[in-house]
């Protein structure tokens, strides 16, 4: 088994919100998540919108502090570190966002966008930084002359390439890509996905690839984690998961895919009903109100993630019976 790059144990993140009646409440966007990301792999993370996958991505990229749990990056614990101690670790994980418009500061030319991270870390002289920026631009398929352009002069695909170059400029081990192609035209998606694969090989990267489009995740991921209402309900190697899904939720998602054709529609439509509100999660298994296999135990006791072989993890009381 390869080396562990990132490990989370019992990671959680809550937000305080105002309920409709005006009383304050707490929402757990991510709750009790344990996972490992191994050096060199691509871990896919799928789930309906609002399931907490973006928040989990931001937690792992150290952009949002966790409320509870443990998080280690390259063997070092990051929980409770001061801003100053955190800064060198932040370099190791960089993020690519879904919306290429809001991801780039419209006031800055590409050169400033790409060199700012180097400046923040005091790397190189001005001209060295520009050189590196130009080199990375070429690596993502743009040219050095694009350094002088502003985001609004670039197409969506070009912007996403710039965002990728910015993520890579600090030489991170791990890149968290939060639905990097879902805001792009279908014709561009292929190119960006190929670029991601290409960059992974050239720079020896590890990806956490977040998506709601199963077809896309299937193309790129080595292992896939499925998230529901802030928790990971199933985690398995890609082929295993797609061939023999163990969790009823995963099965529902997969059954929906062929009917969706291009996979353009969000997977949320594939299931009857809406996910329960994160504000008032149901007791027992969070999925039971929508689950056709739900029994008495599902309504009262929450299933813990369990694995028979240490490879395929699932949190369901009836997983064995279903498989």
């Amino acid at each position, binding site marked *: 088994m390869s080396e562990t790059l990132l490990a989370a144990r019992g990671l959680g993140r809550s937000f305080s919100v105002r309920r409709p009646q005006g009383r304050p409440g707490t929402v757990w966007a991510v709750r009790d998540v344990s996972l490992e990301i191994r050096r060199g792999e691509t871990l896919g993370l799928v789930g309906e919108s609002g399931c907490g996958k973006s928040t989990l991505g*931001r937690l792992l990229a150290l952009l949002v502090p966790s409320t509870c749990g443990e998080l280690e990056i390259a063997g070092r614990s990051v929980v409770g570190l001061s801003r100053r101690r955190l*800064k060198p670790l932040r370099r190791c994980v960089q993020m690519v966002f879904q*919306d290429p418009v809001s*991801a780039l500061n419209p*006031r800055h*030319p590409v050169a400033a966008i790409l060199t*700012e*991270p180097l400046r923040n*870390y005091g790397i190189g002289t001005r001209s060295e930084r520009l050189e590196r920026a130009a080199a990375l631009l070429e690596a993502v398929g743009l040219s050095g002359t694009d350094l*002088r352009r502003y985001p609004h002069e670039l197409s969506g695909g070009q912007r996403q390439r710039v965002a990728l170059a910015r993520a890579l400029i600090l030489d991170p081990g791990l890149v968290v890509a939060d639905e990097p192609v879902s805001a792009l035209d279908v014709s561009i998606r292929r190119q960006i996905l190929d670029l991601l694969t290409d960059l992974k090989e050239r720079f020896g990267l590890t990806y956490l690839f977040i998506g709601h489009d199963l077809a896309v995740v299937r193309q790129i991921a080595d292992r896939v984690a499925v998230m529901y209402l802030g928790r990971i309900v199933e985690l398995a190697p890609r082929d295993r998961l797609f061939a023999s899904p163990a969790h009823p939720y995963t099965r529902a998602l997969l059954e929906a895919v062929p009917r969706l054709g291009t996979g353009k529609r969000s997977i949320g439509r594939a299931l009857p009903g809406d996910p329960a509100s994160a504000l008032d999660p149901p007791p027992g298994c969070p999925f039971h109100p929508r689950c056709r296999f739900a029994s008495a135990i599902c309504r009262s006791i929450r299933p813990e993630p369990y694995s028979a072989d240490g490879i395929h993890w699932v949190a369901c009381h009836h997983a064995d019976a279903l498989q």
Partner: protein
Amino acid sequence: MTAGAPLALALRRFGRQRLAVGALIVLAVLILLAAAAPLVEAALGVDATAVDLSARMRPPSAEHWLGTDELGRDVLVRLLYGARVSLFVGLTAAVAATVIGTVVGLTSGYLGGRADAVLMRFTDSVLALPALPLLIVLAAVDLDKVLPAPLAGSELTGLLRIVLIVALLGWTTVARLVRSASLALVRQDFVLAAAGAGAGALGIMFRHVLPNLLSPIVVAVTLSIGQVILLESVLSFLGLGIQPPMASWGNMLTNAQEIVWEAPRLAVLPGLFIFVTVIAFNVLGDGLQDAFDPRAE
């Protein structure tokens, strides 16, 4: 800056708005005239403050192009000196109000949560004050009771006091504007990306948030200059602002009501200057707003 820079784009869009460009020209001429006030005074051989009761309310002539006022002073030169006062007070008070408003709004929008709630509650309360009556109370305060004598009497103190009073009540609009704009900005991914790329909180505020607020702030300053000039003229008109013998457009109108029967010119001219200046700033601000508006693209 390349041709593609957002600023250059905005400038090009601004150039297409004839009305706003016209306002800019009017203001440029006015600023030049105000700057040249002492020169005009010397060239015409008149004195802006010298009282000459034998030459009261003279009609326009070769010596006094716009005639004289009720104390025999040259109206044109006093109008030009009044322009200095109005522009100085307008500019400094608008900038001061904008600085206060930007600090409050940015802090509120960036920090969010409890700090935001407290600051906005405070801003709302200031908005619920009877501004004009309070301005009058503040302007009527006897500086001798607050400041040491040499300071209390000086002309500059008189000017700065008006600036301070107006700024003290005028920052709220900017604060709300900057807050809502920065709230929207802070949610943008590039702010998060900057944090992930090692930028500190201050760096994010000054490199990423503030520059993107520049256009609403510039618009706010421009629009509030007009409001400030109006307020200053009101206070001076009521005898609580700029004190004679220093000329201001407002205090030139103080006595106009009594002599409107004899010399309507004295009631019309200073007001016309106020009106033209204020409308020019308002049109300019509106034009800038359109030029900066991304939806105009």
